[in-house]
């Protein structure tokens, strides 16, 4: 994998050197900018602001989406009634929720996070609804006969069956959430990677755009490999 990424960087360098265009900087120039932004502290300020928003929006949407998905998956009448709502919210463009949230709730972090969550919740709910529909009736009966009660049933019977769906929602969720967080930052916040990118756009500063993009992709990769994947393999130890 490292080899193929290196090849991409080399290819990029060659094309950039050949093109000699200020809107296509070489990878070395981009790393220079990255270094500069890191040294003057801007990089940390903006990425940490973005990460905080991503974390809050992610947790909020995973929680609410899971609850909605479980209710819809388990109760047929609720599912029939709210299915149309879910499709509506799934197809609502991110731009619409973002502008409306800012207009209705003001240019605040709360509005920004609400907008991101509204984009992500339907997605999580659809995933978790599938999970709730596939819950085993056999295990439910077993839990009922052996008088597990609701808490033991949730913890030992229901949630373990939902982990694959939860993991899928979490991984696709993280990708979606951080992309939308950048958009809400560009629109109405004065900190964060999205805000920094919008400034760079006004100056047509491609090096800075690429530098921040690179930094953030790197961070998300680290979260994926250092947090999500080990977590998933831990909850899967029982599988043959």
């Amino acid at each position, binding site marked *: 994998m490292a080899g193929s990424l290196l090849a991409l960087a080399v290819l990029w360098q060659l094309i950039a050197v050949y093109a000699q265009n200020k809107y296509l900087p070489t990878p070395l120039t981009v790393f220079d900018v990255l270094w500069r932004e890191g040294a003057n502290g801007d990089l940390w300020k903006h990425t940490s602001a973005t990460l905080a928003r991503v974390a809050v929006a992610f947790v909020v949407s995973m929680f609410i989406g899971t609850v909605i998905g479980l209710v819809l998956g388990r109760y047929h009448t609720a599912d029939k009634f709210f299915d149309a709502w879910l499709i509506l919210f799934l197809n609502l463009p991110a731009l619409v929720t973002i502008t409306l949230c800012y207009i209705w709730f003001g240019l605040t972090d709360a509005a920004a996070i609400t907008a991101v969550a509204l984009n992500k919740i339907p997605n999580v709910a659809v995933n978790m609804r599938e999970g709730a529909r596939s819950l085993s009736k056999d295990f439910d*009966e077993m839990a009922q006969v*052996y008088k597990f009660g609701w808490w033991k049933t949730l913890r030992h019977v229901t949630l373990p069956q939902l982990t694959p769906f939860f993991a899928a929602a979490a991984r696709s969720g993280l990708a979606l959430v951080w992309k939308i967080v950048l958009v809400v930052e560009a629109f109405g916040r004065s900190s964060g990677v999205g805000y920094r990118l919008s400034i760079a756009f006004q100056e047509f500063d491609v090096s800075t755009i690429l530098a921040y993009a690179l930094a953030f992709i790197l961070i998300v990769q680290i979260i994926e490999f250092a947090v999500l994947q080990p977590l998933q393999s831990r909850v899967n130890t029982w599988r043959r």
Partner: protein
Amino acid sequence: MAAVKDANGAAPIRVSVRSKVFPAVGDREAQLVLKDVSFEVAPRSFVVVTGPSGCGKSTLLNIIAGLDRDYQGSVDLGPAKDRLAFIFQTPRLLPWRTVYENIALALPDGDPRHAKIPAMLEDVGLSQAKNAYPERLSLGMQRRAALARGFILEPEILLMDEPFVSLDDPTAVSLRSLLTDLWHSHPTTVIFVTHDRAEAIQLGTRILRLAPGKASVVQDVTINLTEAQRHDRAAVLAEQNRIFAA
């Protein structure tokens, strides 16, 4: 201890299902599964319910267990209903919990019976496998774990739904003798469903035969075998012929 159990288990179990109908689904018409199935079970007896596939045996067990409430009739388990265990046709062990955890989960938190789990694992021969996940075990071992989960409750009523199907012969034989041993050391009322006639004769003290189509009890007989005769193939076969010839 024995005196308390006797006082609890003294009342017989009364089952009286006037009718149980599976409602129509799609193209399939509504189906009468059970009709006028009534019987009493004396405490500490081992009743085998037998009959061909599809005659409603499993449905009957689900009704007795309270899992199926959509029927006409009544089931009176008396005080024993709070101590009911069910051993299903598939082991139904939680694959994401170890053997030990699966057994412990059948008990309320902090229950004194937790202390008896190691001895129970010893009895069913799973001491070595207590920390294994069920899917890594053979079906025979999974069924042993399911037996342990049922018996750790020290149940007053034990319902069993063909718990030894899909096992090879030697494994089935060893599990049957394990069940007999467990039943002797933890006496309880057993209702055991099977379509295997030899198994029915070998294990039971009484047989209820359900007939297909009629969906009701066609025969209710006591099995007259001593403990020694139960291990004697010829005696089991003779008793089988006596009962099923009728």
